[in-house]
Each structure stands twice: as structure tokens, then as C-alpha cells.
């Protein structure tokens, strides 16, 4: 994130220098003063308003990055302020402040666009951290609106494209750090393989983008998609596994930036998320090929020749179990039981099942998928 340059605000006027990064709207004076002091100590310029009307005026004139708004106020309510903010500037990130016992309305407000909520009383560190995350999102929104709203600029074509070698080198330096902290050899090799495949994935997607803004947009779109899923699950911590499953389904793997994002959104430690993501078979922490080839290794399939089928597939695709080919086309996996035991041995390619496919049939399936991908 630290490499992103601050770009002008797209279609909107650039804010004046020295203007506020944060606008805080609350009817309680002590709250206003306390928060303002905390934020300004952290170098975040903060303007305050005591009701919704005044607040909206401030937002209109200052164009802050983040708005902190109390839900319960005399006059215009926090919800109404929330509804108006996108009309002023969709890049502004609203955060809701709420008293104890009104969590439901806070969740409600997140559904209509609030980025997060803080339950009073909150720790100053919590406030700063949440505002900072809001600022990051706002920055992403500015950057991407820039890409979306403006015609491609000429200078972008000359910008340096991050090449594969760079990515691999970065990966290797990260590994050597891992080595120095005492990973043993098999862990080291495992980690090397993981990073290599991740690096390949990034090199490929970076190679296909012309400029960094587009890459940022891609990440932003990932995060927006994840937000959509989290919202659908009502921001409930116990839905974490369901959220991860849906994310995996959409992206085919769970990239680090997405897991960090989910950690921040649901207030769950990143370690806990990794604990779950590495426990269940369904999740992949490595990028996978465009098509998932699964050989069922259930008992019924095993006695009717699943190991032989696996060998055949592995030989045709020239990859081992749990590997992805160099074109990022196929990932070969095994699955404990697909519940198609009567048709054993069973092969599943994406959503299609086939019962004991012959060599010719296998080649046909893989070739047709490759052709499809080429057409794209």
C-alpha cells in the first residue's frame, strides 16, 4: 500500500491543502473532543460537527476521506447522513459510531454502505486503526475511480511492467528470510514450491496488465467482491467458513490480501483465519489452474482402479497430485469421495463427472478445455 501515489480525485475538485482527512459528527461534546484529539495526535486532520446538517455541509466543503458518524442524533439521523454521502462523493468511507445495545442498527447501517462500526466506548487504538483502514480503502477508491473514469493516459503505456523475474526474486528473498528463522529442509522446499506457484500466478496476471492502476483495480474488485459476501452473511464471525468457501468458489484460491481484508472486517485474528483455511480440504492457499481435475479416491473407486486412473491423468497432464501445470490451466487433485460410487472410478473436471474415462475420452476432455481457453 505504501507505494501508491496519491492521485487527484478524478472528476471532483482536489481538496485544498490542509483540509481535514476526517469529519466527525456526534452530538456529544466529550466524544467529539476526545476523538479529535486522538486522531490529530496521529497526524489525521479532523473536523467536527455536532449534528447531521452541519456535518453534511462540512463533508460537502472539505471532501474528507473518512467520515465518522454517530447513529443517534437529534435532527438528521446518522442513517440519513450515510445515505447522502455517496451522492457527494462515492469515494468517501463512512464509519458508524454506536452506543452499546444498538449493534443491530450498526449492522443495518453497514448494509447501506458503512465501512465498519465502532461500539462505544472504544479504545483510542481501535479508533485509529479503523480510521486508517478506512483511509486505505478510500485511497483505493480514488485510484480506481481514476482508472474507471478517465480515458487511458499516454504515459501509462510507458510505465514499467513488473516482470516475472522481479516477482520471483522477491519470492526468493522472502524464502531466505523463512530459512533463516529455522524452517527445516522439507518445509523449506514446500514453501519454495508454494511461493513459486504464487509468483507464477502473479507474474502472469501482472504481465497481462498494462499499468499498476489496473492491478490495483483488480485487487480492489477482489475486496469489493469479498465485502459483498461478508455483507450477505451479516458480518457474523461464525459464518467465517461459509465466507471463505464462497470466496474460494469465486477466486479459485484464497489470496493473502483477501484473508487480511476478511480479518479486518470480521475482527478475527489472521492466524485464526489461516488455521481454518489450512485445516479444511476445500481451501487452497495457492493459486490454482483455470480448471480443477479431481480424481475420486473413495473406497469404491479405489478397488475399481482409481489409483490407475490417477496415474493416467497425471501422465497425460504431466503434473503430480496437488500440482498445477505451467500454463495455469489444470490443477490435479484427489477427493475423498464424490458420492458417485456406483460409477466408479470417477473423474470430475470442474462440474462434470465421468465414469472410468478411456485414454481417448480423457484427451478429448482436456483438449476441448484448452481450446476453449485459447479462444478466450
Amino acid at each position, binding site marked *: 500500500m505504501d507505494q501508491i501515489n496519491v492521485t487527484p480525485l478524478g472528476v471532483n475538485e482536489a481538496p485544498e491543502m490542509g483540509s481535514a482527512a476526517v469529519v466527525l459528527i456526534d452530538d456529544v461534546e466529550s466524544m467529539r473532543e476526545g476523538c479529535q484529539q486522538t486522531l490529530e495526535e496521529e497526524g489525521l486532520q479532523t473536523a467536527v460537527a455536532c449534528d447531521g446538517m452541519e456535518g453534511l455541509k462540512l463533508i460537502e466543503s472539505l471532501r474528507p476521506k473518512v467520515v465518522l458518524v454517530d447513529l443517534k442524533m437529534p435532527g438528521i439521523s446518522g442513517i440519513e447522513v450515510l445515505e447522502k454521502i455517496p451522492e457527494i462523493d462515492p469515494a468517501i468511507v463512512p464509519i458508524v459510531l454506536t452506543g452499546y445495545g444498538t449493534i443491530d442498527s450498526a449492522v443495518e447501517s453497514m448494509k447501506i454502505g458503512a465501512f465498519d462500526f465502532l461500539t462505544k466506548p472504544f479504545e483510542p487504538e481501535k479508533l485509529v486503526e479503523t480510521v486508517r483502514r478506512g483511509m486505505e480503502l478510500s485511497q483505493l477508491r480514488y485510484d480506481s475511480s481514476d482508472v474507471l473514469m478517465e480515458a487511458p493516459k499516454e504515459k501509462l503505456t510507458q510505465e514499467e511492467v513488473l516482470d516475472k523475474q522481479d516477482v520471483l526474486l522477491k519470492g526468493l528473498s522472502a524464502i531466505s528470510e523463512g530459512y533463516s528463522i529455522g524452517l527445516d529442509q522439507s518445509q523449506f522446499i514446500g514453501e519454495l514450491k508454494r511461493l513459486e506457484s504464487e509468483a507464477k500466478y502473479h507474474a502472469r496476471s501482472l504481465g497481462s496488465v498494462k499499468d499498476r492502476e489496473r492491478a490495483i483495480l483488480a485487487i480492489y474488485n477482489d475486496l469489493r467482491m469479498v465485502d459483498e459476501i461478508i455483507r450477505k452473511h451479516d458480518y*457474523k*464471525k*461464525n*459464518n*467465517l*467458513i*461459509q465466507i*471463505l*468457501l464462497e470466496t474460494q468458489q469465486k477466486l479459485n484460491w484464497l489470496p493473502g490480501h483477501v484473508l487480511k481484508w476478511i480479518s479486518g472486517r470480521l475482527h478475527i485474528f489472521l492466524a485464526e483465519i489461516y*488455521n*481454518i483455511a489450512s*485445516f*479444511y*480440504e*476445500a*481451501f487452497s492457499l495457492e493459486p490454482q489452474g483455470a480448471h480443477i481435475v479431481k480424481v475420486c*479416491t*473413495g*473406497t*469404491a*473407486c*479405489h*478397488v*475399481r*482402479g482409481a489409483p*490407475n*486412473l490417477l*496415474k*493416467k491423468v497425471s*501422465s*497425460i497432464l504431466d503434473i503430480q497430485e496437488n500440482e498445477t501445470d505451467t500454463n495455469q490451466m489444470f490443477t490435479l487433485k484427489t*477427493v*475423498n*469421495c*464424490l*458420492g*458417485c*460410487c*456406483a*460409477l*466408479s472410478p470417477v473423474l470430475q473436471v470442474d*462440474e*462434470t*463427472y*465421468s*465414469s472410468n474415462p*478411456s*485414454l*481417448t475420452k*480423457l484427451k478429448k476432455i482436456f483438449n476441448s478445455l484448452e481450446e476453449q481457453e485459447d479462444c478466450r
Partner: protein
Amino acid sequence: MTKLNSIKDLENIKTACGLEHQRKPITVTVCSGTGCASCGSTDVADTFLKEIQRRGLQERVSLRRSGCHGFCEQGPVTVIHPKETCYLKATPEDVPEILEKTIVEGGLVDRLLYVDPQTGERIPSLNDIPFYKYQQRELLETISAIDPVDIRTYFAVGGYSALSYVLTKMTPDQVIKEIKDSDLRGRGGGGFPTGKKWETTANAPGEPKYVIVNGDEGDPGAYMDRSVLEGNPHGVLEGLIIGGYAIGASKGYFYIRQEYPMALNNVKLAIEEATEHGLLGKDILGTGFDFSVSIHRGAGAFVSGESSALMSAIEGHVGEPRPKYIHTSVQGLWGKPSCLNNVETWANVPLIINKGAHRFKSMGTEGSRGTKVFSLVGKVNNTGLVEVPMGITLREIIFKIGGGIPNGRKFKAVQTGGPSGGVLPESLLDLPVDFDGLNRVGSMMGSGGLIVMDEDTCMVDTARYYTNFLAHESCGKCIPCREGLRRMLDILTDICNGNGREGDIELLEDLAEVLREASLCALGKSAANPVMSTIRYFREEYEAHILEKRCPALMCNKLIRYWIDEEKCVGCGLCEKSCPADAVSKVGDKLYEIDESKCIQCNACFAACPEKFSAVQKTNATGKKAEIAA
């Protein structure tokens, strides 16, 4: 869609659906379970629909896309009612002929009928096919009679009558008593008495209470639950609502594996339909009972099917078991009393209420009442789902219903109870199948997988397979299970690779004892069953591997080799075409040869070589080519 506000509303809609059901004299049922769907049943059904309309038969003939018929290997299964004419492996091209000959003329399409392999006779009616004839289909009957994504077809066969009866005519205590009287035991593996479990949760202190469907069917080789969830989601849901009423829970969960997309989808639709009809939600049928249901997708971990692990997963944590000093039925989900039952158990509940506990009790044996669905798979002629009364012998299931072993091979063993079960030899084939009978011989009922193995299946490899499975699925929380299984796997792999040492068998027995004594949950406690039962019944196979470096079943890769018999080979080239590794190549004019340095031992050439030539040979690696040929 109308919300049903009273029992009377439900009666009305049921009558209407029943009449609608009978309005057309002929019904074409096309099985749309996962098995048949992968054999192209969707296209067959679509073609039927088009052809019925094109011929103007829509007033006489209706089309139903039903759940699994069980005879998956012969799919797609098409059944034409009322005569129950059964056509197997029909393609869209066959559809016009079926309509013309069977529906218009009342005749048969001979080539699509089931042929009895013993007599060569063609059998037209579904119920005369041996696979169906010897079954007692109580639960599965509904599945083949309804369209799982249309609640009206479930109403038409009397769906939700049990619920309305329970809500109006029974107190929760009476419902529990009825289930207790039926002697229903849990179908998931443990065989715990269901009524007793319900009573414990109902009496446990703490509110709210939860009821949960365990659809995390993890046993490899078993797919009953998948078919029931896909084919009759309303039946399971009805059982769950009744359970909720009896126990005093107003919230239920379905825990379903994400590997079962169709089951997830059909259950989701069933919940939506039931909610729209007022069968879920507040004040169900005007009786004041509230009940709602959510689905939790399992993310793929065998151990998560264990009750405490499953509940931990619903709470959003890693699905690891906890020590159960206090049962989950007293302190389960979020520390509240929670009643967890298997899919098949819940699906039996409406049947018991509708037909009475005494009827359920009249089936099966002392201690194991009712019917049980088995997934009969592996090396058997008729693979599929079979429902039989408890107490039937293994021989009847495998030879009468299953039609014996294919390709004239000899029966060797049958595996029951999944990875926690055991392997049973031919001498135990006359054993009656029930909970206690199987336990006595070192296996268990499990969720109902019956995997048949013939003489080409290696028993040491089978033990290695299950141990490998369990070693991967062990959550790693307790040491005996984590380390013990890993060691057992190492030893078994060595034996399979020809590196076994004398004393290995005794070492395996020692480790098995530790696992059974010291593991935390049932996964570890029963993990040694496959190894122990194979040693018990097939010790000579272990010894052949260890002492003679020989695999009697010719299955262990490191101990066998493939080669082509020059005298038998006619040069047809099928082996070359089937080889994925380019290891088979032509030598001279006619003959083929296998390059052993390239051979990946995938058995493709052996399978491809026509039986009348049998030129591709598979032999033990230690034997000399010439000796074996002679």
C-alpha cells in the same frame, strides 16, 4: 404461492396435488440423481418433454424428474408408470421409439430392458428385476416417486401429514415415546437409540435448544445420504421439524458437505418452498410452533462428521472434536443442548409417525429394527443403493440383489462401516447384517457402505488405503491418533513396496492396541479396525508380502510387472492406443513390447487387451518371465 395458515389449508393443497398427480394416466419418470445426471439423464428428460408436446400427448402423459432410483450403474433409469416398465441406459435418440412403442402402442423396446445375466431373460417391469425384487424400499420409494424440487409432488404422496398429525394430535412427550417405541437407532454409524437421544436433549437444562442434520457423509464408498438429500429433501426436513417440536427446539441446521452441490441446492430450495408455504417460520400451520432452518456447508474434513467437531464447525471454528465428558445432546452447539442425527435417521421419522412405531418395529431383528439403506459398490454386478430390512445376510445382498461378482471372478471380501469398519471374508457371508452382529466380528454397521472386493483386490493395500485416508484426516489433536496412524502407514507402505520385515504384523497389532486405548475420539479409537480385520482374516496375504515379496492379488505396484506374451499377441494394437505413457511400442511387423522403464503400471494395456487373446500379462516381479509363461 399460498401460505398455509391452518391444518385445513394443508389438507386442501394435498388433495389438490394428489388429484393433479393422478390426472394423467401415464407418467414417465426419468431419474435425475447425480449418477444418472452424469450419464446424460437431463438430455433424456428434455427430449421426452419436447417429444411429448410434439406428439400432442401432454394431456395423457406427464414427465417427472425424480431423485435417485439407486440403480446408478445402469443409468439413466427411465420408468413408465403405471406398468412400471423400466428402461436402462436410454439415450435421447431412443426417446421417440419409447414414446411410439410403449406409450402409443403399449409394447416394449426390447433392447433397453434389463437382461438377467444368468438366464438371459429380458425383464420389463422394474419390480421384477432382481436388484429391486429383493429389496424393501420404504425410504427410497418416496425418492423415486417425487420431483425433489417441487413440493407439490411431495404433497401428492402424503408429504407433511406426519407433521400436521404431530402438531395437532400429539404432545412432544408422546412424539418422543413413539420414536422410543419404534427402537429406531441412529443410522450414521454409532447406532445410538434415537428416542433416548431426543429425550436427553429435551430434558437437558438450557435454552435455546438445537436440532441438527448430519449430512457430512464422509465415509468413502457410501452415498446414501447424498441420494436422500438430493431426492427427498422434504422428507428429511419434515423429520427435522418434528424433532424440533418434540425436543423443544426452534432452530435447526443442515450440515452438508460442499462436495455435494446438488444436495445443497435441493435442500436450499426445499427450505425456501417450505417457508413460502408456512411450514417453516412463525406459527407453523396456525399451531403456534415456530421453527427455522439454516444450511452450513462443510468444507471437507472427515473428522467434522463427529458430533462435537461438527458443532464447532457451525460455530465458525476448526472442526476438531473435544473430549465428551458431557455429551453434545446436553451441551452442544454454543454450549446449548443439541440433538444431532444422521440424514437417514431424520428421514425415517415421518415414516414412523405415518405408519406407526409397531410397523417399524415389525421389520428387522431384535435390537436392530426397521430397514437400512446400503450403498452396494465395488466389484459387484449391480452396484447402487439398496434398502433392505435389518438382519438380511450379506450373501443375500451381494449375490441376490447385487448379482454376484463381475467377469466370473471370485468373491474375496466385503468391507463394511467405512474407514472405522472392517473387512469380512467369505466365511462370514451368512452373517445377518445388524448393529450387534457386525460389531461381534470386528467390523461395524457404519453409515452403510458395502464395498465388495474380488480376488484382484489386495488386502494389505486395502488396509494401507484406509490408514492413509485416516492419517490424512486425523485432526492431529491427540498424539496416539496422529503419530500412531503415521507409523502404521509407514509400515504398511513398506510391506506393499516389498520392504516389509518379519515382526511387522506384531508391531501393527501393538500400535492398534494403543490407538484403541488412548485416542480422544471415535476416529482414532476405531482407526485400526481395517488393519486388524485384514490381519485377522487375511494374515497369509501379509505374510506373502513380507516373506516372499509377492502380492497374491497382483495389485501392489512395486511387486508386479507387465509384459506381452509373444505367442498370444496378434498385433491388434489396442494396448498401444490405451497407453498414456508411450511405453508400448511396435517391434518388427506384428508384435508389441512394453518398455518397463517407461511403464507407469496403470493397468490400461492389461484392461485393453481382448480376453480372447490375453496377451498382456501381469505377474509378480520376482518370477521369471519364462517360468510364468510356461
